[in-house]
């Protein structure tokens, strides 16, 4: 009997991780839930014991800033669910819709401003959705192209500078909030509820899960996948435009820097919330939680005196951890 030499012959090649740990990492979904719960409780304790966290200005600032990214993240959730991972152009869309809102409000009043910004967001993103869903283009590449197109178009029409509202346009009513809750956060909650209702109570929402879960299986049961994908992008455009409008109102100005980096923060919130990066599994409510978690971490770090770099580092690590846990948790 001839046995070929092999470097593997001697000992077991399995990593010598303790069994408990291995199960925690490679074991199924239930463990993921446990990890998530433990993490949330730990974070809550950390936040509540950080001096200054529970102060009113701190909370108010937290709820306001979280809402801009939050709305984009809700839109991003739909794109991720549809199986197209993420869009790099949502940040630019926030900036451009903020500018459109300001300019249109100056020209035709607030109502016209709202309508123009929402329509522009919906159209620009639905066009991307068509390119991806109908023509089958790679979603990442398409969104990067869209990003360049948006920046290019804004520069080309000479609107690169900051836009300000005219004196006769007043945003006053939107800056007040209700019973101390900033209006941005109310909008964010509203968007979350709408998003969740769309996902669970419309045919479009169920189709979205099917298309994201298995494009071929969805087509075989008669789902027009291109419509579903375009729909996801369209809603993402609407929600991002809302973020743009809110920013324009909050800062009484608008320029292309407004949405800078939002797409990254949004995808982080989507993933931390637990929506699966391959699509087909997750929800908008989860993204709501993910957005809050990231924001709370950032505030706590800030209050503890750590600088911005640390926040980026931590956000990066968090996303990496989630993605690794996801692939190990769902893979076989």
């Amino acid at each position, binding site marked *: *009997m*001839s*046995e*070929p*030499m*092999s*470097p*593997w*012959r001697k*000992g*077991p*090649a*399995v990593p010598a991780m303790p069994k408990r740990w291995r199960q925690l990492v490679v*074991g*199924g979904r239930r463990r993921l839930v446990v990890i998530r719960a433990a993490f949330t409780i730990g974070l809550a304790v950390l936040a509540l014991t950080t001096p200054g966290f529970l102060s009113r200005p701190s909370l108010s600032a937290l709820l306001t800033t979280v809402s801009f990214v939050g709305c984009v993240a809700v839109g991003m959730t739909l794109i991720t669910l549809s199986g197209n991972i993420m869009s790099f152009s949502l940040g630019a869309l926030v900036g451009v819709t903020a500018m459109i809102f300001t300019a249109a409000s100056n020209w035709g009043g607030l109502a016209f401003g709202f309508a123009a910004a929402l329509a522009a967001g919906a159209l620009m993103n639905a066009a991307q959705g068509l390119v991806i869903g109908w023509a089958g283009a790679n979603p990442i590449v398409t969104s990067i192209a869209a990003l360049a197109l948006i920046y290019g178009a804004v520069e080309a029409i000479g609107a690169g500078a900051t836009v300000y509202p005219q004196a006769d346009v007043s945003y006053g009513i939107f800056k007040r909030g209700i019973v101390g809750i900033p209006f941005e956060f109310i909008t964010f909650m509203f968007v979350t509820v709408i998003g969740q209702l769309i996902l*669970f*109570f*419309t*045919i*479009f929402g*169920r*189709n979205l*899960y*099917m298309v994201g*879960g*298995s494009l*071929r*299986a*969805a*087509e*075989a*049961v*008669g*789902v*027009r996948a291109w419509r579903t994908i375009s729909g996801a992008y369209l809603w993402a455009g609407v929600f991002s435009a809302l973020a743009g409008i809110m920013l324009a109102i909050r800062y009484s100005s608008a320029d292309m820097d407004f949405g800078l980096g939002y797409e990254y923060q949004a995808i982080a919130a989507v993933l931390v919330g637990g929506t*699966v990066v391959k699509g*087909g*599994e997750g929800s908008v409510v989860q993204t709501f939680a993910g957005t809050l978690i990231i924001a709370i971490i950032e505030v706590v770090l800030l209050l503890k005196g750590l600088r911005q770099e640390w926040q980026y580092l931590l956000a990066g690590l968090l996303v990496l951890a989630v993605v690794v846990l996801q692939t190990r948790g*769902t893979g076989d």
Partner: protein
Amino acid sequence: MAQQVVSVQGVSKSYAGVQALRAVSFSLAAGEIRAICGENGAGKSTFVKLLVGITHPDCGVISIDGRVRTVAGPQHAQSLGLGFVAQELSLAPRLSIHDNIWLGSAEVPLIHRRARFRARAQAAMEMLGIGDWDLDRPVSTLSIGQRQLVEIARLLARQARVLILDEPTATLTDAEIERILGVLKLIKARGHSIIYVTHRLGEVFDLCDAVTVFRNGEHVATKPVREITRDGLIELMLGRPFGEMYPAAPAWREGSHAVVVDRLNVPGMVHDFSLVAPSGKILCLAGLIGSGTNMVTRALAGLAHRATGRVTINGREMRLGSAAHCVARNVLFLSEDRAAEGIFHRMTVTDNLVATGLGAHARLGILSWPRLRRFAARLARQTGIDRQRLRAYAGNLSGGNQQKLLFGRTLERAEPGILLMNEPTRGIDVGARADIYRLMRELCRRGYTLIMTSSELEEVVGIADIVVTMYRGRNVARYEREAIEMTSIMADITHPPRATQAVA
């Protein structure tokens, strides 16, 4: 008896609290071909995975050549002389046969000395009677059956003495299966042992010396095939007496012509194919892989974008190339590839069942979940899926239950539908298979029109009311009821006398 090459004692394995194998013992002699049979979920796959180190036993002992071993992983198993061919082929299609044979081998040094390895690859190919194949040919140019041979050659080249094959013939046609079986007998004659996991009982009796039956993770029996009958084997697998596999066809009535296909063409695959299918009958398209049978059903389901031809469904013309349009016309498709084109793995059974019925339970696009849940519960009852499973992930169901789920989607339509099925029982165990056949007959009774493809001749003859044979994308012949018999179908699909005329 010859020396025991593999011996397993008291091996158990559980996954997340589910006992997949319970105190299993097993031994295999040199030069023996051993079949492993059992229903889906009986523990066959877990057992072979333990042997080749893909998973590890919770307790128990595995000995190879009389020495107790801990098989660390597939490469370690290879060095011990155990070679494994998984159900899904693991060849890299763009690489050549030669590269595939050595791909991932621990023997190949960092600097690949091709000549020496080439000779060994060639020798392995010759042992299989395929020494005339060009080793530099890319694997993508081979048929599935030929690829299966390359997989086996790969094991031989790496000096595997025990070949473990997990359903090697599941996706092959009868002619290709013959070839594989011939090759396996040749390998046995050279003293190799083979562990052969299969659902096809015919192969057990054609090929194997003995058969080991698993049921619910336990070893039920090991018997020489001489001492067991086909029915006896099925009974061992099911644990209960087995009735007639194929339900009797109802008395023949002329049905209306539900589906009329006139000169269907799919470039390169189907040429001027015509078909008339009556309602309430099972029409079976028979042909080898590549004969276009599966493409005909795909085209009728709207899943072949370049298909042309005239198709009428109950007298109304149907547009090809749009699956959504076909589903709207009640033309429903069950793919042979349930994993990729049927099931939504990460959605619940309920979600899966209602996938084609959302529109009927919604008003202005808003869904009524109470109605959908009742709907899903009704579908589950009719297809024989356990109600408790409705909230489970569909991906966790066995193959048989997944297929029942897909049938469930086609029930309770506004009117009887046209059901297109590719290989509806592929990879499904005997018990669930009989359930599927009963379901198909029930659909016929409700006035559905069933068109299916199958590469298993026994199934074709057993279940079909009408058989249409195909060769290289063209019609060969049509048989009804008593005229259906195996030899003429076999002749039609392998080398039909009329096909050459049809081409001219």
